[in-house]
């Protein structure tokens, strides 16, 4: 039977002015954690849990990154080393792995699940194209550098890496390199553009979606998104049927 877990806070690191990396001792979690899956985390006195994708999981250490935004994440940004955090998971469907040549495309806080995806894609040729607003918002550059074969960083304002949107960087990257799959996570407008670029190049694309969630396990039907499968429009639950989905089903024509 599935259950929730209490995990000890090992460290809470500040990555930027608003982004934090939480390291939890998750050696009590015996389940297999797939890249793209998430944990539903109790945050302070907030009534609902908050969903965070897995940034990394290795040797019993679970890493979750989050942006301090509302009441819940503000509370989570105040946890102290040695305290325990109540996590439910791993939940949802992760990325399909096992392709020969892969490229991950991330924007802002969307980059985090892609790090774990790269780390779990052993044997693949791995490229990463990551976009941030500006130099101050660039996160985990060393980790990504170590986890892939070829890293491109783009900043919208040109303050670091290549200048411009991540989608422009991706277009250029695809002119020179061929891939069997593209995985993307970031703002929905960015992911849609990534899908359109992949479509032009005939590369299958998986997206990791975000939606306000209730239960996180598929019961409350709060986090649905419309997808088109075999020409039929239907509601899929981001938490249970996703958060990873095939881009052509989400961004149907």
């Amino acid at each position, binding site marked *: 039977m*599935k259950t*929730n877990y209490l995990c000890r806070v090992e460290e809470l690191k500040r990555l930027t002015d608003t982004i934090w990396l939480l390291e939890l001792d998750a050696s009590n979690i015996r389940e297999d954690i797939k890249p793209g899956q998430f944990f539903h985390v*109790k945050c302070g006195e907030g*009534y609902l849990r908050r969903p965070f994708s897995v940034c990394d999981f290795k040797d019993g250490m679970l890493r979750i990154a989050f942006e301090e935004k509302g009441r819940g994440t503000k509370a989570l940004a105040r946890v102290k080393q040695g305290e325990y955090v109540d996590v439910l998971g791993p939940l949802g469907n992760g990325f399909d792995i096992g392709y020969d040549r892969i490229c991950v495309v991330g924007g802002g806080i969307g980059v985090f699940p892609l790090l774990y995806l790269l780390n779990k894609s052993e044997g693949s040729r791995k490229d990463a194209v990551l976009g941030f607003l500006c130099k101050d918002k660039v996160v985990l550059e060393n980790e990504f550098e170590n986890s892939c074969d070829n890293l491109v960083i783009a900043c919208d304002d040109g303050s670091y890496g290549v200048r411009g949107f991540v989608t422009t960087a991706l277009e250029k990257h695809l002119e020179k390199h061929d891939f069997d799959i593209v995985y993307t996570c970031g703002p929905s407008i960015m992911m849609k553009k990534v899908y359109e670029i992949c479509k032009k190049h005939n590369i299958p694309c998986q997206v990791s979606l975000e939606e306000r969630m209730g239960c996180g396990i*598929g019961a409350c*039907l*709060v986090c649905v998104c419309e997808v088109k499968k075999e020409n039929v429009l239907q509601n899929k639950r981001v938490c249970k049927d996703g958060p990873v989905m095939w881009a052509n089903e989400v961004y149907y024509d």
Partner: protein
Amino acid sequence: MINVGGLELKNPVIAASGTFGFGREFSEYYDLGRLGGISVKGLTLEPRMGNKTPRICETPSGILNSVGLQNPGVHEFVRTEIPFLRQFDTKIIANIAGNSFSDYEQMAEILNDADVDAIELNVSCPNVKDGVVFGQDPQLLEKLTRSVKDRFEKPLFVKLTPNVTSIVDTAKAAEAGGADGVSLINTLLGMAIDIYRRRPVLANNTGGLSGPCVKPVAVRMVHEVYRNVNIPVIGMGGIETGEDAVEFIIAGASCVMVGTANFADPLACIKVIDGIEEYMEKMKIKDVRELVGSLEFN
């Protein structure tokens, strides 16, 4: 065993409609046979896609939701969900919602031939057009209750909305129409505003408020209804613990439903069941029936 309007329950805890799907997701966390019963996701005659997102918003000590009765329709429920639920030793309560007498009557007939243990008449969903009309008009409600009762042989419960001037009037109407019990409260109509966009947070503009924040309102209403009708009352509204449940039972509830708490903790129902038992042991009470309506006013 406790008997609630002809429905035999192994314990007084039922999973509330709309918070538990058809039990599938929770069956990964515990044996559904531990529950007194399950009131399934609100069913309509035809499948419904529900409202646009966002469908949820957290509030102080609770949530606002506006799912809009997304469900696969009563036929699909009978075909695939009843066989699944029957694997577990628990009671199946079919929660049904309609826009017309005909909708409700057809569903009652379909379910009378299906393997469910009871119907919960949903005349109080605030998130669909016309959804609450039946629940706010005592005369209409009495007529609707009788019409469904005539078509369904097993216990019939009417779920009452708190969005009325007097919930006693609608409870009495349900009783007059032949209901075997009433369940209350459904969610309180509410709204939350994004002050930076000056728009409602929920796509549907308004939604139903639930969770611990509504509990005192629910306890008061359960007690008022208990004192004024002779049919059993099923209490709900913000129950998270055994103590919460006992509060409702003392107020007059024969059994309780656990709803929103399932969102925060998939094991919430089990914790409520265990908590009631702990209270009874501590207070040396042998039978939960001794507690029902045992409230004494100051």
